[in-house]
């Protein structure tokens, strides 16, 4: 039993990373109804920028955090300005394909910079394990878990209680209506991409804390997208719950099913979960159910 709980805790800690990645995707979707495949790149570049200042230049933790956020936000803004702004008014599917094109281009830049090597962040969080009832929890993962939960709370509050959040919700509902009530829709798009990029940077730093920065890192965006879709694309709560759940399923599944099927459950669990959820509840577990005939 204790073994099961250990696997579960480890899984939930990893799951908080998925939830963080998914949060950025949900944010962009909530305000613009664009599903971003490129988000994994923002996550990876957030981690890379942080490494540049912490590991490359040797700046202290807090000083390297700020430029990493600024640079990632700039990248997000650049994506929105150069690639997605020209597509306003076109079908949403074109924007989806555009984020896919951005993913490929940025993947090239990422690979070009890494040159096949890996980068490892120096330990910037307290290391060691916390022992609770015989379970051991790595302290640095516990911190990133708490950061994830706090970030979700903060973003939800922004959406619910600030004027900016109200504008974003209005924009998601209907661009033209929002514009006629005095909301500058173009600015809302810029703000949401900046916010989403900062969330991505947090996710990237938290991810690089537990794994190396290497050429496959951007593909965590696909895991994030799976979490966002399973949670219902417009639900932050759904992203959090499903993210933690996915980490749990992957880890516990790998622990108990790997001996039965010969390994690799971790690689495929997310996709099986996605297929099942899409077939049973196409609009996600927590998403707004829209009635649409197919």
């Amino acid at each position: 039993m204790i073994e099961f709980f250990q696997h579960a805790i480890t899984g939930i800690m990893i799951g908080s990373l998925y939830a963080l990645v998914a949060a950025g995707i949900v944010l962009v979707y909530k305000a613009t109804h664009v599903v971003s495949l490129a988000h994994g790149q923002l996550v990876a570049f957030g981690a890379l920028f942080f490494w540049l200042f912490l590991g490359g230049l040797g700046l202290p933790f807090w000083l390297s955090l700020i430029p990493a956020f600024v640079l990632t936000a700039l990248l997000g803004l650049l994506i929105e300005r150069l690639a997605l702004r020209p597509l306003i008014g076109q079908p949403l599917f074109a924007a989806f394909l555009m984020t896919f094109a951005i993913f490929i281009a940025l993947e090239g830049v990422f690979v070009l910079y890494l040159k096949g090597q890996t980068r490892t962040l120096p330990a910037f969080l307290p290391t060691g394990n916390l022992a609770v009832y015989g379970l051991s929890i790595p302290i640095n993962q516990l911190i990133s878990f708490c950061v994830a939960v706090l970030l979700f709370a903060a973003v939800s509050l922004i959406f619910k209680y600030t004027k900016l959040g109200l504008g974003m919700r209005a924009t998601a509902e209907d661009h033209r209506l929002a514009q006629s009530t005095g909301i500058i829709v173009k600015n809302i798009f810029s703000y949401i991409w900046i916010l989403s990029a900062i969330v991505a940077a947090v996710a990237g730093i938290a991810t690089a804390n537990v794994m190396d920065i290497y050429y496959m890192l951007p593909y965590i965006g696909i895991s994030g997208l799976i979490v966002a879709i399973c949670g219902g694309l417009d639900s932050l709560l759904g992203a959090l719950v499903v993210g933690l759940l996915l980490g749990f399923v992957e880890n516990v599944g790998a622990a108990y099913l790997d001996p039965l099927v010969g390994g690799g459950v971790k690689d495929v669990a997310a996709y099986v979960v996605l297929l099942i959820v899409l077939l049973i509840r196409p609009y996600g577990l927590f998403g707004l159910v829209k009635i649409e005939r197919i």
Partner: protein
Amino acid sequence: MRPCGVFDKSYGLDIAIIRTWQHWVILISALILLYTFPLFGSYYLVSFMNSLAITVIVVLGLQIVSGYCGQISFGQDAFMAIGAYTSAILTIKFGFSFWIALPLSGIMAGIVGIIGGAPSLRIKGMYLAMATIAIHFVVIWLILHMEITGSFKGLYPPPPSLGGFEFDTDERIFYIIMTVMVIMTYAARNLVRSKVGRAFVAIRDNDLAGEVMGVNLYYYKLLAFFISCFYAGIAGSLWGHLITVVNTEQFTLMHALEYVGMLIIGGMGSIPGVFFGVLFIRILNELVMFSSPVLAKALPWLGSSPAAALGLIAFGLALIIFLVFEPRGLAHRWEIFKSSYRLYPFAH
């Protein structure tokens, strides 16, 4: 593509694919050029043409399901893998000849494609795209974890042979690949203007209206997936017998993304667009390949082998430019050229 003043005088002329005697001349000389190509083309060009033709077959299938039926699929490379593995298993383990394994691998991929296309009955657009990404990974995982597929080691299918003649070099198998490509192109061109093709277009443009008009959505969506995966399976089988080694590392999600990119650049919903898109991306890739050593020498910070990364950047940028400036792809430009040629020398 007809000059000014040529009109269809009968129904037969109106529906003909090849309309004038000039077309026949161009077609026949193009075919002769194609089939004599290995006699004067270099080895490099012949193997380039081989991989080009196989990609054309895969993207033709994708064009039918995505361009005509409107169901975006990122799983095309997984179905190609199924075709390659089926063909390899049939020839190695069961001793089938290549000529029987080729259509069987297409049918096998098609049947799996029906299962893979089943989510399209409930979801569409971006959700379906994600579901097909999931299917890609599930299929590759299943292949890796089965006994019969040789797991990580892969399989080594023999080159095809006919009556003692071995198609064991790139120049020899060239004829098989080109013949299959020509047949598949002809079939696709005819399919999309038949009843089935019109049903696909109806589903793409407005599925509800299509259903009201009597198009059976479930049947035609699954049929589109079957045909598309049949193409992928045939291409996979050819690929396996061309390079005589099949393993899961050849079939990556990046390839599937590349096929969708080719479709966007070539133009959705156009058979010539497939050729434009494949040629554009492949030539772009080759240019990057050739120029990257020069670039690496001139700009040392790029590293010693930037070809793969630069290829991705060029591909991504080309896609972005096309999505912003010409979302209908090169095929649209071709249509514009054709209609202005039809009017020449008059303005309109």
